[in-house]
C-alpha cells in the first residue's frame, strides 16, 4: 500500500495544489473514472473547512495523506487547529425554500454523502479526518 503526503499552509490559495495531489494519488492507484470528481469534492469541502475555520487566531498547516489500493482509496486530512467534528454538524434542511434555506452547512453534508466511510478523531492537538472511498464490484473507479 503506497502512501503519499503533502503538507501546506492552510490557505484557500493552496486548494488547487491539494486537489491536484489527491487526483494524482488516486490516479496512481487506478482511480481514474467517475468516482474522481466525488473524491475531489469531498476533499475540497474538508480542506476548505480547515482553511476557513481551523485557525481563527492566525495561520497553520494542513496535511493530506493519500493511499490505498484499487478497491479502497483513503485520504487523511489533519491540522492543528481548533477541534471540529464534521460528523457532528447538523443536517441541512434540504426541503426548505429559497427564503428559508440557510446559506452554509452543505459542505459537511456533501462530505458525508460522497464518502463511503468517514471518521473523525481528535488526537492531542490534532484534528484527524479520514475519508475512505470504496470501489463497488464491477464499478469503474
Amino acid at each position, binding site marked *: 500500500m503506497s502512501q503519499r503526503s503533502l503538507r501546506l499552509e492552510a490557505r484557500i490559495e493552496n486548494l488547487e495544489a491539494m486537489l491536484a495531489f489527491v487526483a494524482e494519488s488516486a490516479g496512481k492507484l487506478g482511480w481514474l473514472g467517475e468516482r474522481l*470528481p466525488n473524491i475531489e*469534492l469531498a476533499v*475540497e469541502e474538508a480542506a*476548505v473547512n480547515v482553511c476557513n475555520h481551523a485557525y481563527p487566531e492566525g495561520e497553520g498547516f494542513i496535511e493530506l495523506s493519500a493511499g490505498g489500493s484499487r478497491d479502497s482509496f483513503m485520504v487523511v486530512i489533519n491540522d492543528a487547529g481548533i477541534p471540529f467534528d464534521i460528523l457532528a454538524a447538523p443536517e441541512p434542511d434540504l426541503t426548505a425554500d429559497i*427564503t428559508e*434555506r440557510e*446559506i452554509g452547512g*452543505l459542505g459537511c453534508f456533501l462530505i458525508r454523502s460522497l464518502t463511503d466511510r468517514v471518521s473523525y478523531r481528535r488526537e492531542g492537538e490534532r484534528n484527524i479526518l479520514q475519508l475512505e472511498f470504496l470501489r463497488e464490484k464491477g464499478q469503474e473507479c
Partner: protein
Amino acid sequence: MEILATRNDKGTIVAISGKMDAVTAPVYEQKLRELIDGGETVFVNDFSRLAYISSAGLRSILATAKILKPKQGTLMFCGLTGPVRDVFEISGFGSLFPLHPSPEAALKSIG
C-alpha cells in the same frame, strides 16, 4: 472558471465553464450581483460546460437567489451533467430551482 453573460430579450444567459469551487464561486456571485444591480432579473445559468461544483458554488447560487427573490427574479439552470447534476440532486438544489435541457427551453418556459 469562465463566465460569459449574453443578454437576450427574455433574460440573461450566463454560461459558466470550468470549476465552480471555493476559489472561483465568489467571482460568479460578484458577476451576478453586478448584473442584478444593472437591472437584470431573469437568469439562465448554462452549466453544460461546467465540470465541477462544490458547496461554495451552491452557497453563491443560493445567495444570488435570495437577492433575486424580493425582486421577483428568476434563477434557472440548464445543461447540468455528471458530477454537477449529482451535487444538485444530493443537495436538494435540483428541486429548489427550475432545471431545463437548454437555454432556449429555459427562456421558453417563462412565456
